[in-house]
């Protein structure tokens, strides 16, 4: 049953060093910037972060990297308008990268949430990204075996939440969010609005409450893109 937290600090309290954290979003859309910045304040380190990208500018995941919190990125596209935070650390050997084709990344996360330990996909067969992975032939076509991805924590950005934890998303901000919400031990959601249980039409629910552990309302969430346009730089708050 989802628990409504009154602060970001409360929502993130038990995150530990060394955890694997899925962070929703594709570029800036659907990125839970307030949760990410609160996690920077929290200070967990040695994290494995799963996201489509690897940060842009000096906010969000890029700021996590700049604060030395990320040991490893699992992503499909560690490039962006301003990828310096990741690029510099990667080229200096300071951060590990597991590069996963985007559709395979999405499917591995779904598999983690759905209890499917492995599946076969045509994607990547015969390429560097399939090296070392089992392959198999079905109906005379070759496929690569891919494993599920799970996480300790998922940080999710939703539009509306009700107190049962049911979620909706805003336009293309949906992207990886509903998948990651299924695949983590603890799913922590920032929602623009938290309404009473039953305040969302059951037909409109995208993420059913069973996948959600904690909710915190961020009524006017900032867009990563907006921060980057003003050259924002997130610095850890003094403790």
């Amino acid at each position, binding site marked *: *049953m989802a628990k409504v937290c009154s602060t970001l600090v409360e929502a993130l309290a038990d995150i530990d060093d060394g955890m694997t954290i899925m962070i929703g979003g594709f570029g800036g859309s659907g990125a839970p910037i307030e949760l990410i910045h609160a996690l920077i304040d929290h200070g967990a380190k040695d994290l494995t972060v799963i996201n489509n990208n690897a940060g842009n500018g000096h906010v969000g995941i890029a700021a996590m990297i700049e604060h030395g919190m990320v040991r490893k990125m699992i992503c499909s596209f560690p490039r962006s308008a301003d990828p310096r935070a990741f690029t510099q650390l990667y080229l200096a050997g300071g951060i590990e990268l597991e590069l996963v084709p985007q559709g395979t990344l999405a499917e591995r996360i779904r598999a983690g*949430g759905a209890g499917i330990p492995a599946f076969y996909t045509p994607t990547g067969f015969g390429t560097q990204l399939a090296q070392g992975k089992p392959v198999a032939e079905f109906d005379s076509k070759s496929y690569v075996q891919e494993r599920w991805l799970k996480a300790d924590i998922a940080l999710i950005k939703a539009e509306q939440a009700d107190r049962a934890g049911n979620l909706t998303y805003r336009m293309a901000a949906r992207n990886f969010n509903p998948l990651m919400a299924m695949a983590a031990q603890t799913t922590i959601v920032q929602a623009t609005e938290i309404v009473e249980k039953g305040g969302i039409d059951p037909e409109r629910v995208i993420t059913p409450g*069973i996948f959600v552990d904690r909710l915190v309302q961020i009524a006017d969430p900032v867009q990563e893109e907006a921060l980057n346009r003003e050259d924002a730089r997130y610095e850890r708050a003094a403790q």
Partner: protein
Amino acid sequence: MTSQLDSIKLSNAQIAWRAAQDIEDGAYVNLGIGFPELIARFQSDDKDVTYHTENGVLGFGEAPEEGEEDWDLINAGKKAVTLREGASFFHHADSFAMVRGGHLDLAVLGAYQVAENGDLANWSTGKGGVPAVGGAMDLVHGAKRMAVVTDHVTKKGDPKLVETCTMPLTGLACVTRIYTSLAVVDVVDARFVLREKLDTIPFDDLQALTGAKLHIDGSIAALQVPTL
């Protein structure tokens, strides 16, 4: 002993009542078709429990009044239900992602046989006819607790808790707790551990009605006989 048993054993409703006591506040629960569905009747109002049904509803409630049925709003047993606040609809693959992915806190099913290692046989008597499995083989995998409600013995008086299932298996090593008409038994490290029994049945008699050794780990509580 069977007729004597009949006088002391719990009714299905009483077994369901006992199973309902263990459901935690906030739990997501799937109750199998038939006998397990009775459990919802004994859910206390001070616990907020959300019921899942395989056909894509989370948060359904009681049956509607006769004549008020909406046949697009049914449960896995094809019976009309109603919605509670906070319900949601989803398709079958998402529904079984909840099941297989370990998101349910509890699933409760009936049983033909349960083995001491937690194997469950509940889908086929193996005697021919038309086989049908539904969601049982999925439900036994994934829920954090997988409980069974059952008579302690068959109508013929044969044990249903056994060393090894002789009927076709639904799942291996999946059952965690068994609520019977005589006892509450956990499966721990491939052994039956007796947690509760009726005061009215001596341990040796209970053991005699059980097809595998009943282990004791700490005290054995009295299985309550509620007036329903």
